[in-house]
């Protein structure tokens, strides 16, 4: 059995540990300050706002927007800084595991899965909306920060400013509640972001991981590596009976039997657990694990 055979059955604990590990500086929740240690320049492979009071690392989407927003200012000052550190970090993570951090470590992913457990009628998430996350990436994370600058040649972090509900939940609301000095600055933008967060919380209860699938620019980046990463999923067409149990259990409604390394897959490995015909497997370096073929076991018995 592979390295992930047992952990995947307790994935929610890994997600909780990931959320806690990335946000381990808990005393700041009492003071309303943010962690300011020297290790905070290290990027984390998930969407986690660096203004969350306890965040110990840098959000790569915030960091990359800041880098792009500063490119023209840096060039004007003859400084060659293009965001290579963050781009390299994301590419390196993607090359090894693809979108796996979304399924195992992301606090906002965990929140979406927990919200979806609320027992109310569910809706199918329209598949075409999955393409929207590339638009968010191209326009708000890359395009506008690079193209629209102020009189000092400095751009803005458009995704953080106008969309990111993780920032509102992890930083916006806590800091406004805990820090009286910031409370006086609340205005239209704050209410807009809180309204968006409420909208996403509502969507999470009725459909699976709506933010990851339609909006998250980090998922869009890491997902592009799914087909070319060291970690690989595979489906054996001869064993697959198209029972669709994997799709039913998948946290992103993925039809893995159509595309084993789809950019939508968060590699939670729930399908490896679900498949009773030994059709789904993964490879990582020298490790290989196949879903247990209960049919073959029954026939053998």
């Amino acid at each position: 059995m592979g390295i992930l055979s047992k952990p995947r059955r307790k994935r929610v604990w890994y997600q909780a540990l990931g959320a806690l590990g990335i946000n381990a500086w808990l005393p700041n929740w009492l003071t309303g300050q943010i962690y300011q240690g020297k290790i905070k320049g290290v990027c984390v492979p998930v969407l986690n706002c660096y203004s969350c009071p306890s965040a110990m690392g840098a959000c790569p989407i915030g960091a990359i927007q800041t880098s792009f927003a500063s490119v023209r200012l840096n060039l004007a000052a003859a400084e060659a800084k293009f965001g290579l550190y963050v781009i390299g970090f994301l590419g390196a993570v993607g090359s090894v595991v693809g979108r796996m951090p979304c399924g195992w470590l992301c606090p906002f992913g965990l929140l979406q899965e927990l919200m979806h457990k609320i027992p109310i009628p569910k809706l199918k998430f329209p598949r075409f909306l999955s393409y929207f996350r590339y638009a968010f990436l191209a326009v708000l994370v890359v395009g506008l920060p690079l193209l629209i600058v102020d009189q000092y040649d400095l751009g803005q972090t458009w995704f953080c400013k106008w969309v990111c509900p993780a920032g509102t939940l992890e930083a916006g609301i806590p800091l406004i509640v805990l820090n009286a000095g910031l409370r006086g600055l609340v205005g239209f933008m704050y209410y807009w972001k809180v309204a968006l967060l409420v909208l996403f919380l509502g969507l999470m209860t009725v459909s699976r991981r709506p933010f990851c699938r339609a909006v998250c620019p980090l998922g869009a980046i890491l997902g592009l590596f799914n087909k070319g990463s060291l970690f690989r999923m595979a489906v054996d067409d001869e064993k697959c009976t198209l029972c669709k149990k994997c799709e039913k259990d998948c946290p992103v409604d993925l039809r893995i039997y159509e595309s084993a390394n789809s950019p939508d897959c968060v590699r939670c490995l729930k399908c490896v657990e679900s498949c009773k015909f030994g059709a789904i497997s993964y490879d990582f370096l020298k490790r290989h694990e196949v879903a247990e073929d209960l049919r073959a076991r029954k026939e053998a018995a």
Partner: protein
Amino acid sequence: MKRRLPWVLLTVFLGLMVAGLLLGEYKAVLEKAVTVCLDCIGIG
């Protein structure tokens, strides 16, 4: 057949990361990360 693509990608992106570090980008990310991001919290 041994797949080379992931190793090529990993090498290229690690190279980019190191180049960024050598250009001082870690400090730039750190400076942003230790300051309250007003945009992120909706008051920027």
